[in-house]
């Protein structure tokens, strides 16, 4: 085998990009063709090219950067709270009977509760600024993390816990050094569910409460029947979301390099 020269590398890279984005490209092409075919009015389905143009204009004026930064900030701060809080509550529930007693029914009730209905209360308590938005996001996205943590900890092989106890690990150390890594695969799954949820709820909260942010911009566009603006928002959120989801998957791969899933499945 000759050493990899740049042409091979470039070819390989192109190949990956082409295959990876093939389906998206097809979707986008279908969109443009459909919109231009005249089947729909621009209000129903604006052409992709116009939407991109609009995004470009927003980028030039700086609106895009501000809105994106605000939405991301809200989503990521909430995500951090969900990750830390969710894992902590989940761990407490698995290791402490009192915590389990307290949280178990509350989670069962709180998880499927349509929390939007409490919006007026939240606005009155916390206002419409970041605190209230972040609170709404957190109460919506923390549950998957808690649930995943609990079920992950239940599934840990008891010999692993014994092993650590045997080598002198104290309860606190066990949590960090054994329970957490052993449960990590499923906790990561919970986080992978929670991250896009935080983005979704961030946008929805912005839509409901107005103000800056991608959701606010989309809501405004939608009120003024500005479809191009609405679809621009959809595209922007899709791109940001895609990056977040990908980043999370990469992080997972890094953290779980030891795990079975790091290997490509054989004998498929």
């Amino acid at each position, binding site marked *: 085998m000759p050493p990899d020269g740049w042409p091979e590398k470039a070819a390989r890279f192109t190949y990956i990009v082409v295959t990876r984005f093939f389906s998206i490209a097809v979707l986008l092409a279908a969109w443009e063709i459909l919109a231009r075919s005249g089947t729909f009015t621009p209000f129903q389905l604006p052409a992709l090219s116009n939407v991109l143009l609009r995004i470009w204009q927003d980028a030039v004026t700086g609106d895009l950067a501000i809105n994106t930064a605000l939405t991301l900030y809200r989503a990521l701060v909430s995500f951090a709270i969900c990750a830390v809080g969710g894992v902590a509550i989940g761990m407490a529930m698995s290791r402490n009977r009192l915590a389990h007693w307290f949280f178990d029914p509350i989670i069962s009730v709180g998880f499927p509760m349509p929390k939007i209905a409490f919006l007026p209360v939240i606005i009155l308590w916390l206002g419409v600024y970041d605190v209230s938005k972040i609170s709404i996001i957190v109460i919506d996205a923390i549950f998957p993390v808690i649930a995943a943590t609990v079920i992950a900890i239940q599934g840990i*092989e*008891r*010999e*692993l816990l*014994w*092993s*650590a*106890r*045997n*080598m*002198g*690990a104290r309860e606190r*150390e066990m949590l960090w*050094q*054994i329970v957490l*890594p*052993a449960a*990590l695969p499923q906790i990561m799954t919970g986080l992978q569910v929670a991250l896009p949820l935080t983005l979704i709820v961030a946008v929805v909260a912005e839509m409901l409460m107005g103000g800056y942010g991608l959701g606010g911009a989309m809501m405004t566009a939608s009120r003024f029947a500005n479809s191009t603006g609405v679809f621009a928002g959809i595209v922007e959120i899709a791109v940001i979301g895609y990056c977040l989801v990908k980043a999370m998957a990469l992080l997972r791969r890094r953290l*779980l*390099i*030891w*795990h*079975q899933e790091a290997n490509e499945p054989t004998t498929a």
Partner: protein
Amino acid sequence: MKAPLDRSRRLGRVHATMSVPAQIVVDQVSHLYRPPRGREVLALDQVSLDVANREFVALLGPSGCGKSTLLYLIGGFLPVETGAILVDGKPVAAPGPDRGIVFQHFALFPWKTVRGNILYGLERQGMPKDEREQRALDFIELVGLNGFEDSYPSQLSGGMKQRTAIARTLAFDPKILLMDEPFGALDAQTRGLMQAELLRIWQRTPKTVIFVTHDVQEAVYLADRVAVMSARPGRIKTIVDTKFDKNDPAIFKAKAFVEKVDEIWNLVKDEAIKAQGKRT
């Protein structure tokens, strides 16, 4: 409720008949597994066993007779529900680094490399960094895993995993060693080397060892006493003295040795046949 009375009587006897007080006292211990679904299994039935300080006891018995269960109880992993287990005179309440255990299925941390697995116990003992790194290397060397320090358990062969587990437990130098078929997955030669190393460590830094094995020769060779367990529900059937000069290379051919092996072999055989008989 006559158990408490019984126990105190028995404990008295132990102290009276042995010059050194036993380091591990297993007193009329029974263990019943109650799985959430499926049948209950009485794994141990009134097992009693005393192991003196620095003694090396081998545990033999048919498959499923409760050997692992007994180690788990002494290790403090399972709660002692009937009977009592004392270590150094105190009832066992929880696992602790005074009792190192090598699990039958290794129980390596899959997210740590070979080195990381071995280092873990040392960190927990609070050993300084340089020292523990050195010690980990020494033990990797000892079990012949040089070059695999940074491999994850999933990248090791069965025997290599087992050797990692052995190294991990030996490295943090517990006073008491509980070993559950520690050499089961090793080839004859590596096994011989490991046996020699174990003996060397045992002699240099004296430890009390309880060693489960299926190899009668190994048991007789390594142990001071061999406890033979009966088929399920497990009981201690007989305890045989097996003190030989471990440093004699010709020991395996010695008549006394071969006879001991035969004697124990027959004891185990009876049990296995009984176990088999019970089924049909």
